[in-house]
């Protein structure tokens, strides 16, 4: 489903070129549960951004659902993100003035889906992630764990090909982190593809496939 070949990402900082990704080759099949671990600055977040179509590789080929996406323009990338990618961030990134339901609905709103069609999907997401009684609450009235559940529900709103989670437990206590992981794993159990970036070995080791990155290169690829 995802195929990366010779992906490079170079940033120019001042006059120096920083190689965040050096020739990454990677294939991810549909339904995989995969974690990327490594020290800070190893390029794991950059790799996630490239896969999430937020960042363009400097060189290499990226195929998503058997389609080369390296040459897409900004609007095509936006549309591809909307339809194929679900993001979960460390800091939740909920819109503070919108309530939980409105936050979950946002991708469908951006996609121009009409309100009548949004309603049943929204209701299903709210019940699936146990948020029915929190639907009208704004993020500042929700706990961290609830916020991240809202974020996961939002990521699932458009039925994406892959869910990308960047340190999803990084801002939560251990217990809440476990809960959120359980929610993410349920996405995987239902057939979803989940890609997880973390530097917490306990979280990372839960994945069925574990990548290790150092200095922009994939140095380990274990499966269990």
């Amino acid at each position, binding site marked *: 489903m995802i195929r990366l070949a010779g992906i490079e990402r170079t940033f120019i900082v001042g006059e120096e070129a920083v190689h965040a990704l050096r020739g990454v080759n990677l294939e991810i099949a549909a339904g995989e549960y995969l974690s990327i671990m490594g020290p800070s600055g190893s390029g794991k977040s950059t790799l996630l951004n490239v896969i999430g179509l*937020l960042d363009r590789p400097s060189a290499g080929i990226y195929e998503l659902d058997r389609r080369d996406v390296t040459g897409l323009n900004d609007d095509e990338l*936006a549309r591809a993100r909307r339809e194929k990618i679900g993001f979960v961030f460390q800091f939740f*990134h909920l819109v503070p003035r919108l309530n939980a339901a409105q936050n979950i609905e946002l991708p469908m709103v*951006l996609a121009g889906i009409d309100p009548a069609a949004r309603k049943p999907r929204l209701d299903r997401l709210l019940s699936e992630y146990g948020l029915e009684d929190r639907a009208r609450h704004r993020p500042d009235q929700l706990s961290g764990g609830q916020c991240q559940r809202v974020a996961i529900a939002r990521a699932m709103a458009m039925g994406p090909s892959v869910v990308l989670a960047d340190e999803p437990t990084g801002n939560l206590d251990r217990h809440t982190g476990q809960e959120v992981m359980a929610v993410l794993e349920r996405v995987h159990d239902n057939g979803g593809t989940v890609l997880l970036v973390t530097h917490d070995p306990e979280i990372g080791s839960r994945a069925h496939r574990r990548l290790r990155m150092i200095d922009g290169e994939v140095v380990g690829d274990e499966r269990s």
Partner: protein
Amino acid sequence: MRLSDLLNFAWQVVRGSPGRTFLILLAMGIGVAAVVAVTSLGEGARLYVVNQFGSLGTNLIIVLPGRSETAGAMPGVLVGKTPRDLVLEDALALKRSHAVRRIAPLIVGAGDVRVGARRRETPVLGSTADFIEIRRMELAQGRFLPEGDPRQSLPVCVIGTRVAAELFGTRQVLGEWLRIGDRRFRIIGVLAKQGESLGFNTDEIVIVPLAAAQALFNTESLFRVLVEAKSREQIRYAKEDVEEIIRLRHEGERDVTVITQDAVLATFDRILRALTLAVGGIAAISLAVAGILIMNVMLIAVTQRRREIGLLKALGATSRQIRLAFLTEAVLLAMGGAGVGLVVGQLARNVALQLYPAIPFQAPWWALLAAPATAVITAALFTVVPARRAARLDPVQALSRR
């Protein structure tokens, strides 16, 4: 993204920061209210002048001695002669025109009016019986100057209400005598209260027969001849006839100026419209200032909402959607401000109406359309730069900052 969703999204932002929204509404509101109020004043002044001309009498043509249009103030000086006087015979000759209904020659001077020990300096008008018709004046008591030969000097007069009150108090005035200079006049009529009318307060004048005024002021020359055309369409012919008759009587010299009320009215109308437009334009500058405020607020919003913009992009918002979201927000604020401004402007107009009931303050229709339109367009234009800046944000960087 659907329009209703776009509006709803912008509405959430507007509602979410009431302080900011209030400031923008205030700035835009002041701008729009200023335009509405100021153009109301201008339009009120215009309507006031138009009405005043109407009260002067319709189909009016005014003949004055001297030619001001072609040769400046004193054409006679250069060629060694003064302009010919306009005399009663000239005025009477104008009746020959078929387009003229009636005429009233007019002499104006200041007279020392006395009744017993009371005295008062007032303008004294000498004219004929038709004057009251041409000037559309009303009598409160008695009658106006009698018809008859205007060369005949009858010792009668008609006075304004204020003159009557000051000279006689509450006493009956009809049939009483008053002195102007060394002549005595019997009061046969009192003018109805009318107030100021283009420089003349008709409450404070004394009207005597033309011949009497000629004797009082020791002059043959007329100040004006007022001519009433038979109809509005006839004004043009009456004017041509007047010019031709006087030219023939003055040995071929075109030495009078003929003003039609239409032309004067049209000139005033043009001047006051231009003035209204100009002050409206000046007031509209405040709308531009409000636009700059919106730009500033939006630029700050782009910085403050970086993460949100990054998030929207991650969720699949296109650059166009981001731009539209910001533009919608600005337009929504501008429309709110324009609404506030229209209401406040109308309130200001109502206050002005209370203070000066005589002047018909009223915002012209074009100002009521242009002020809100300018507000919205300015807001949209000034949001182009912030909206583009938002749309161009790199989502990775926008999201990475806390």
